[in-house]
């Protein structure tokens, strides 16, 4: 991201929109919202240059509670919408927020595409393992055999691991947090935003209304912090030669299910972003004059030299 220096110093309060959240009392998502407001204030983000993009779901309502530009789009398509925004104007700070169903079930294919590109944006996965907005059906991260109260039989499908998917598809920053730990969530989201490249932060966020199994108590018995368990934990790839080993160790930690590690699993800024690749391979002026900012006409006339462009086809 590019940090723009402005004199005005904003507080979390400055990032509250005109309307209050409409989530169930006690919802884990409040913690994520609070963490976001805090991070935006710490980084003094310009609300008119920061764009939150969401799909559909309880979590996808979050942009309506935040004072930044936002787009609340349709189910599953937040990621490609965000990529279109970011690539049309790479000066924007673009963040996707959404649930496990939106981002990893209906929208899963776009996570795969995003990782391959390593566009400089952040995805905050608000993971409660159920479809809360439609009354608690099983989400893609609900473990096999569990039966939260909306299901009339135990879940016959296995859960997918968003962190492994993100790593396999090429995300260069992968972290996990827990929503009731607001300070830690803020810390990881801030790291993700400062990261150059595609970042995924999975935030375990209990659904107090429909997920009566993966509750606050359930999570708090299981979560631990990587850097507290192992003070030498260093997820950063400092040299390309380390990449294999760092990935291998990240995968080992991601595979833990009895206990759930929190923290940064993997971070690699040595991979060029899509924006850098595009500027290098196609258009050296791309970052300065991206599609959204380049003039296309002067007095109504195209600025493109059409006859030069078509020279090989003109007889």
């Amino acid at each position, binding site marked *: 991201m590019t940090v723009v220096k402005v004199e005005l110093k904003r507080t979390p309060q400055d990032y509250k929109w005109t309307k209050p959240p409409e989530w169930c009392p006690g919802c884990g998502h409040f913690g994520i919202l609070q963490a976001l407001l805090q991070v935006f204030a710490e980084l003094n983000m310009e609300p008119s240059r920061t764009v939150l*993009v969401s799909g559909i779901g309880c979590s996808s309502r979050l942009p309506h509670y935040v004072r930044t530009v*936002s787009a609340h789009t349709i189910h599953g398509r937040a*990621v490609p919408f965000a990529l279109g925004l970011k690539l049309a104007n790479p000066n924007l700070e673009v963040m996707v927020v959404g649930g496990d169903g939106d981002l990893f079930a209906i929208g899963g294919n776009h996570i795969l*595409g995003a990782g391959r590109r390593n566009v400089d944006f952040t995805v905050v996965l608000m993971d409660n393992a159920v479809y809360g907005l439609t009354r608690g059906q099983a989400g893609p991260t609900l473990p096999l055999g569990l039966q939260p109260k909306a299901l009339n039989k135990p879940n016959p499908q296995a859960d997918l691991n968003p962190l492994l998917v993100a790593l396999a598809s090429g995300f260069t920053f992968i972290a996990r947090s827990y929503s009731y730990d607001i300070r830690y969530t803020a810390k990881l989201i801030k790291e993700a935003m400062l990261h150059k490249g595609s970042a995924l932060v999975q935030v375990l966020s209990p659904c107090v209304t429909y997920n009566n199994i993966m509750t606050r108590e359930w999570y708090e018995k299981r979560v631990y912090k990587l850097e507290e368990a192992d003070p030498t934990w260093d997820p950063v790839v400092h040299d390309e030669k380390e990449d294999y080993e760092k990935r291998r160790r990240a995968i080992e930690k991601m595979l833990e299910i009895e206990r759930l590690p929190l923290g940064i699993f993997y971070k690699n800024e040595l991979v060029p972003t899509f924006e850098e690749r595009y500027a290098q391979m196609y258009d050296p002026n791309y970052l300065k004059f991206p599609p959204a900012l380049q003039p*296309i006409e002067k007095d109504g006339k195209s600025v493109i030299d059409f006859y030069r462009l078509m020279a090989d086809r003109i007889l």
Partner: protein
Amino acid sequence: MEDELASIAAAAGAAMAGARAATATSGPGLSLMAETISMLGMAELGVVLTIWARAGPSTGLATRTAQQDLFYSLFIGHGEFPKIVLASGDIEEAFYDAIKTANWADKYQVPVIHLVDKDLSNTFVMMPLPDPYSVRIERPRPVVFQEEKNANRYELTEDGLPVRLLPGVSKAVYHVVSLEHDPEGDPDEDAEMVKKMYDKRMRKIDLMLKEIPEEDKVRWYGPRDAEVAIVSWGTTKPQILAALEELPGVGFLQLRLLAPFPAEEVKRYLAGKKTLFIEGNYMGQSALLVRMYTGIEADAVAVKYNGRPVTADEVVEAFKRFKAGEKRIELDWDL
């Protein structure tokens, strides 16, 4: 992008950022884009979709041509919202229409379907050198505030057009949304507001019909006092024009703007004439469309749906069979 769901979503994002945004696909890809097309209508984002229609249904004749996707282009997307569908008749038209459709997407902030077909998209022709500078590029200037402030992208404007705000440019803080909403862009189901917003969006239809010039709606060829009008759209145009040379006294009404439908112009041109519709589908979709919007019943419909374009000779044949009293004329020449 990885698929058509992503392509149209990325184009929508690029449109929101302020770029001219377009994507291209054929029938199957258009099916995947349907949900986002509806979102473009609600969120009021302008994207051009160039549709390279081919012979269906399903994978059908994937590399052959058809005009089966007229209805699909017109009615795609759940709910009701303004949309533009423009069909080009030949490559030269398609060239200028590409600029016009982009202008309209920018101005009206709606999905714009530029409907061409495989026959047109895949044909090499020698054509006069076009002059792209002859079509004015028009795009509304974004609002830019002196200081950062909250703004209503969905103000209840008189002409129905949304305020043009761009992230990182306008110094505006605003919300774009796919749900029915208030002027601030947040979900709102208040009965009064729902109707006001609906009306506001639909007002764009009247504005388009008022502003889009007649030559982009319909074109008439041949004597104005012709007793018989051949009516068609899209890439049958060159063949019909060629056939007219052998059919003195016959006129040709080319339908170009198919949504919003220019009922007044069509009625004016077809008043008091016998009509023969010619097109590349089974149902005679444009004949049904004209009846729906104008009440004018086709006297005959010539259709072709074997994956091959209608030829000039077939137009002449269709006319002869029409004169002989046939109401439904099925054309089936191979090439």
